[in-house]
Every structure is written in structure tokens, then in C-alpha cells.
């Protein structure tokens, strides 16, 4: 049986590992820590700003510059990826590739995203809606007044307005703690008794037709906790994602990891991959820094899904030299000068578009477009040409590049 080593456990690594395992490939997933997926909002951004607010994300994917990763990836793979995730995680992701949700954030801004969790979509802003944002005294990362007042003063993306007010409740997540994390609250919401107590504290303060905005802590393991709470309140409710620990991000990470394990993916956590060996135009093995000696993993193909600067996959040294830290791959985007301008609040830093160039199979290529190794592929944040967090395109790039890379690898190994 063919074997593939996937390096990285973010959205790209997990999706690729699942796709490969599903077609019978033996997959070893190496990661040096959990991926950024669980730090995110638990949604799938495809295109949010181009640079103006995007309403139809798949249309925006088709209109990018040739240097943008979506050019090599293609809109078809984005559609395949979105469809795949919705079918794989029907209790966690909903949405339409042709229409972004516009969802309230924890500072009361309105954020475009393509797929969102069912627990969030009642928050999609509409003209004339009446919102009440409920804060919990023990949860300091969620300030309902800030959210409500900002939402109420903001013209909606389609020109309308909504009304929003706030209220507070004081329901401790557990005894002996006055300052609980969102995660501790999420674990409390997994328990029906807690939901009963919480609903009791809220329900009499609600007014007719109000949609209830709550911090995104409505259950971690119990994916129906939010629906149960809505029933108890007899109102529509929606979750607003918080800064990390992000409960919706955790739900996605745990679901994709559980799927991968069930599909037979062998996950080796907590190891940095530090070296590789090659023969001719092929990578033959990689070595992790486990223990005093390290461990080697031979495979037929390798997928680099290690992320960017934030995860250490790319490194900038004090001589302004940028490197890809595992394979020392040739990098694209270094011709932009200066790489870092001095204006902190100025335009986007060109440095963040530096990365590995790929061809339409997601093989890592050099400046001439020739694959560096025939069996080395790249997916996700390591790919050059986009700033995922300003465009809100990082999830879509990770998802679709993983779909393309997994397909190319399984075709190559077949």
C-alpha cells in the first residue's frame, strides 16, 4: 500500500489526510503542535474582502490576479472542498458558495464568511432585526454593551439597520472560580442542568421577537446544546465567536481529527519535522526530532501543510533572509521591495505574501515552474501570493489546495 506523510495539522493537513485515507492511502500525519484551525472562528472564509466587502465568494475566487493561490487552485476545487466539508460535518457547517454570511463579531463589527456553524447563522444581519446581546459576568472576553452599541450604529452591508441592546446575567460556570474561560463555559453548557439554570436567568429579560446573541460557548461535545437552549428560551439564538480559546474552532478541529482517526490516519503529535532525505528528484523520508535520536518516516509522497511565519514554517532572520524551514524550498514573493515597510498602521506588509509557489497539482515549484521534487506537494498557508487574514481567504486556500493536492497525490500513486 502507498504511504503519504502529511506535515501539519491545520485545516489543510487535516482535510488532505482525510481525503487520502478515504481513497485507501496509508497516511501518517506529523505535527509539532495543534494547528491554527482551533484558534479561528470555526467558520470557513473563502473570500471576505477583495478589497471591498464580498457578497459572492466563489465569484471573487474567479477574479483574482495570476499570482494569487486561487489561480493555481481553481474555483472548481473550492466548490469541491466546500461541498466535501458540508457533507462531512453536516452538524457543524452550513452555507452557500455564492453568498457570504455577514456575522457579528465580538467587537460588534460585521464579518463576511462563507460557511458558518448552524449555531451562528441566526446572527446573519438583516434590516430591521431586533437583537439582544447577552453577556455573562464570569466571562470577561465578551462585552455585550460594546457589541450591541457598535452593531446598532453600523449601517448594514446592504444598507439597512438593526436594533440591538444588551443585558448581563451572572451564572458561574463552576464553583470556586470567578473568572472562567470560554472553554470552561462551553463544558458547562454541555450539561443540561446548567442550560436549565442559564435559561432561567435569561428568559424573563427577553422581549418579543428578539434574536438572542450569546458568546460562542454553547457546548463543546454536545453539538445540539445551542438548539436545546434556544428551545428553552423560545427565541432564536446565535453564537458570536470569542478570542481564543475558540470553542467553534475546537469543534471543527476535533471533528476533523476524529474523522481522520476513524479513516485510519496515523497521527504522530508533538514532533517537529527537522530533516529530509532525497534520491534523484524524489523525497524519500523525513525525520522528526523525537527524543535524543529522532525518527525517520519514509513515504511515496509528502505534503507540506506547515503554515507560514506564525507557525515557524517560514522564518525571517535578522539579515532579512526568508527561508522555508524544512526543505529550504525556493520562495516566491521575495522580489517585492521593501519586504517590510516601516509604517505599522500602513498598508499590508509585502512580506506576508512570501511563500512557496505551486503548480496546478500543488507541487512545490521553483522560479521556472519546475517541481523541486516530483513527490513534494504544498497546501495551505505555506503557499505564496495571498494574505489570508486581510482578504479572509485563508480557509478557502487551505481547504481547496488540500483537495487538489490529495487528488494529485492519489492519482500519482494509483
Amino acid at each position, binding site marked *: 500500500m502507498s504511504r503519504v506523510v502529511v506535515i501539519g495539522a491545520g485545516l489543510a493537513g487535516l482535510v488532505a489526510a482525510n481525503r487520502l485515507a478515504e481513497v485507501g492511502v496509508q497516511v501518517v500525519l506529523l505535527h509539532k503542535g495543534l494547528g491554527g484551525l482551533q484558534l479561528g472562528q470555526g467558520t470557513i472564509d473563502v473570500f471576505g474582502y477583495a478589497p471591498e466587502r464580498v457578497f459572492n465568494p466563489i465569484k471573487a475566487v474567479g477574479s483574482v490576479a495570476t499570482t494569487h493561490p486561487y489561480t493555481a487552485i481553481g474555483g472548481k476545487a473550492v466548490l469541491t472542498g466546500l461541498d466535501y466539508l458540508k457533507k462531512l460535518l453536516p452538524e457543524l457547517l452550513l452555507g452557500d458558495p455564492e453568498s457570504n454570511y455577514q456575522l457579528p463579531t465580538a467587537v460588534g463589527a460585521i464579518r463576511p464568511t462563507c460557511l458558518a456553524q448552524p449555531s451562528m447563522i441566526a446572527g446573519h444581519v438583516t434590516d430591521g432585526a431586533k437583537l439582544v446581546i447577552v453577556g455573562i459576568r464570569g466571562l470577561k472576553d465578551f462585552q455585550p454593551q460594546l457589541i450591541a452599541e457598535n452593531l446598532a450604529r453600523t449601517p448594514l452591508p446592504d444598507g439597512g439597520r438593526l436594533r440591538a441592546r444588551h443585558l448581563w446575567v451572572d451564572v458561574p460556570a463552576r*464553583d470556586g472560580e470567578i473568572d472562567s*474561560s470560554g472553554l470552561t463555559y462551553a463544558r458547562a453548557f454541555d450539561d443540561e442542568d446548567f442550560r436549565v439554570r442559564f435559561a432561567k436567568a435569561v428568559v424573563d429579560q427577553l422581549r418579543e421577537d428578539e434574536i438572542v446573541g450569546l458568546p460562542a460557548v454553547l457546548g463543546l461535545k454536545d453539538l445540539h446544546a445551542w438548539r436545546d437552549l434556544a428551545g428553552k428560551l423560545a427565541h432564536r439564538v446565535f453564537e458570536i465567536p470569542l478570542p481564543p480559546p475558540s470553542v467553534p474552532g475546537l469543534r471543527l478541529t476535533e471533528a476533523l481529527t476524529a474523522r481522520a482517526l476513524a479513516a485510519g490516519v496515523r497521527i504522530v503529535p508533538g514532533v517537529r519535522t527537522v530533516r529530509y532525505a532525497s534520491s534523484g528528484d524524489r523525497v524519500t523520508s523525513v525525520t522528526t526530532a523525537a527524543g535524543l535520536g529522532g525518527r525517520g518516516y519514509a513515504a511515496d509522497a509528502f505534503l507540506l501543510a506547515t503554515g507560514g511565519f506564525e507557525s*515557524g514554517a517560514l522564518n525571517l532572520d535578522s539579515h532579512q533572509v526568508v527561508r522555508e524551514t524544512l526543505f529550504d524550498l525556493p520562495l516566491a514573493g521575495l522580489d517585492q521591495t521593501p519586504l517590510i515597510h516601516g509604517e505599522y498602521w500602513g498598508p499590508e506588509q509585502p512580506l506576508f505574501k512570501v511563500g512557496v509557489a505551486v503548480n496546478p497539482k500543488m507541487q512545490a515549484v521553483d522560479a521556472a515552474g519546475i517541481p523541486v521534487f516530483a513527490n513534494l506537494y504544498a497546501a495551505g498557508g505555506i503557499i505564496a501570493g495571498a494574505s489570508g487574514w486581510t482578504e479572509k481567504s485563508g480557509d478557502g486556500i487551505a481547504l481547496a489546495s488540500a483537495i487538489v493536492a490529495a487528488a494529485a497525490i492519489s492519482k500519482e500513486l494509483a
Partner: protein
Amino acid sequence: MNSEGLEFAGHALSRASLDSCVKCTICETQCPVAAVTPLFTGPKFVGPQAERFRDGESVDHSLDYCSSCGICTLVCPQGVQIAELNSQARAVMKADHMPLRDRLIGQTVLMGTLMTPVAPLARAVLNNKPLRKVMEVVVGVHADAPMPPPQSQTFESWFAKRATPAGPFPRGAVVFFHGCAGGYFEVETSKKSVEVLERLGFEVLVPKQGCCGLAQQSNGLFKQASASVLKLCDDLRSAGKDLTIISSSGSCTGMLKHEASEIMGVEDERLRDVGTRTRDIMEFLLDLHEAGELPTDFAPVEMTVPYHAPCQLKSQGIGKPALEVLRLIPGLTVVDSNATCCGIAGTYGLKKEKYEVAQAVGKPLFDMVKATSSELALCDTETCRWQIEQSSGVKTEHPIWMIHKAYGLS
């Protein structure tokens, strides 16, 4: 603060990694202790954050509630050695007032030496509720905590007295490292490991060997633990150069592979030599399998068993090799617990003030074990097996038992 280990703990390696912390909270989401009690404020607060304020004295005594399971280090995407930092800070914090109990429960060889000759008596004492209550009050070991099962014969004695195996041993020699628990308490596991290795065609050498010092290290007794681990390296090296060292004591292999160097700063050629040659037995079998050298003529075992990978095995960065090897046995369905920790964390769950926390940590695992099988569970390390068995009521053995059975050896 006069021993080298503590000096290292106060200043070196792991401390240097704390600046890599970006406060992402990933460690907090995985910590099994913070999940069940507000007494522990979580690995991020106690580790990289509190460490900045420590200058000899600890600013946060909730540190003592860290069980050192190590999951935080394993999941940190920035390479911060959170668990190591915490183990070091705890050793420094306890240095001038180390409780008698914490000195005693690190004495694993002493315990084995005392109990083996009087095994039936020792068993009776450890199962006697009133006596255990006295022990809880006097020594601070919880009356309901799992205790090692005393055996009448040590592994060493069995190995010396048994009929010399006929061989042949076409694959050459390997060294077997049994560890204290494998020498005195989990004697069957050690025997079965040796028999499987011999079945595979290896000559098994067992040099006289001492303790790796892990229990002392986890209780902050770095000076004693450093001496123990180096003595053990000498013992294991005495069997021959360049031989693979194999152990069915999953936590002791971790001490040799990385904990002695990363937590206590033991920099010694002998440790480097032994650490790079050491393999957990299931890791070794998986290596053989991947090289196409593991016979898979296993007899079918029609059974469904829960398997739990212990923290100290996971910390070795080898994934879950037992799971891969067990899945080669026809008929056998192995269900991964996917639980973080059983709660015992070496000696943590024995302590009277930690017992309830440890039970709460392990509860999802105990429930999973009970729901999966009433007959048998599998786990690679001794104290975890004792904990799972005690708290779930399901007999718990090392995965090598299943390999031994499937090879027709039992």
C-alpha cells in the same frame, strides 16, 4: 538549591523556550487537570506566564496541581516546553520543604525489595482498608488509590532460574530494560516481552539494572534522579555496545529518551548513547513491521478491547505504535480511548490531596473502558494500568500480552 539539577531547572533550556509563547491557549484547551478543577489555573498561566515572575520563589502555588502529564508540550505549536518548565519550577518550589511522602514514593526499588519476599502479606496490607486509612493520615497516600501488586518472584529471579532458551537467535542480541515496576510488580509483562522477542529470533540480554529515577524526578528530587539515571545507563551499557535496548516500561523509556535531558539537564555521553538506542517494545515491533521483518502469522483473537496510550508514551513523539501493531491481529478490534490522561500521572493520583482530581481526570477514560469491554483493557505503562483497573474494574494489561497470545505463546 545546591544541586546541579535544580540549578539547571532554575535557569536553562526550557526557560529559554518561554519567549516563544504567543498566548494562543492551545495548551489550555487540552489540559486534563484544568478541565476538572479550578485549583489548577492551567498550563499557560502556570508555565510561560508565571515563569517570568519567578526569581527563586514561585509566585503561584497552584503549580503543584500540575500532574506533569505533558500534553501541553505535545500540543504547543510554538515549541514551548510547558510541562518541562512546570516540572522544573515545582522542583525549585519544593526544594527546601520536600514532604516525606514525596521522598518515599520515589523509592521504587526499595518498595519492590521490601514487598517481594512478603508478597502475600504486602498484598493483604495494601488491600486492608483500615490500614490504608492509617497510611493516608500518616503518609498522605489516599486510601483508595491504586497500589502496585506485590509478586512472589522478581523478573530477575525468573530470568536467572528458567531453562536456558534453545534459540536459535538469527537476529542477534537485544538488551531488555525491565524498569522497577517490570522487575518487581509487572513481572508477567516482562516475561511475555522476553518470550515474544525470543519468538522473533532475538537473543535477549538482561544486565543487572537499577532504577531510571523517574518517580524521584516527577517529585522534584533531581539530584537523586540524575544519579539514578546515569547509574542505569552504565548498567545497560554493560550488556554490549550498539545493541538495541527494548523496554515494556513505557514511562521509563521516556526518562531515558528525553526527560532526563530535557527536564533535569543531564548532559552525558552515556545518556545520549543509551537514549538513542532505547525503544519501547511496541515501537520496536512497529519498526520491524515497517521494515517487513515482523512475522504476522498471528492467530485470530475474537475480541474487542479498549486501548489507552499513556501520556509518557505520547510524550516520546512516536504516536501510538501499539495501536498499529495490535491491528495486525485478525479478529481483534482495538478501540482507541482517545482520552488525554488516566489521572494517575506516575504518583500524582496517589496523593491524598490530588486523588479526587485524578479520578475526575480519568473518569471519561474509565467510562469508555467499561463501555467497551468488561474483560480486558490494554495500556503501555504500569501505574496507568493500576489506575484504570482500580477505577474501572476492568483487568488491564500491557499490549504485549495480546501479541504473546496471538503468537500462540499463551
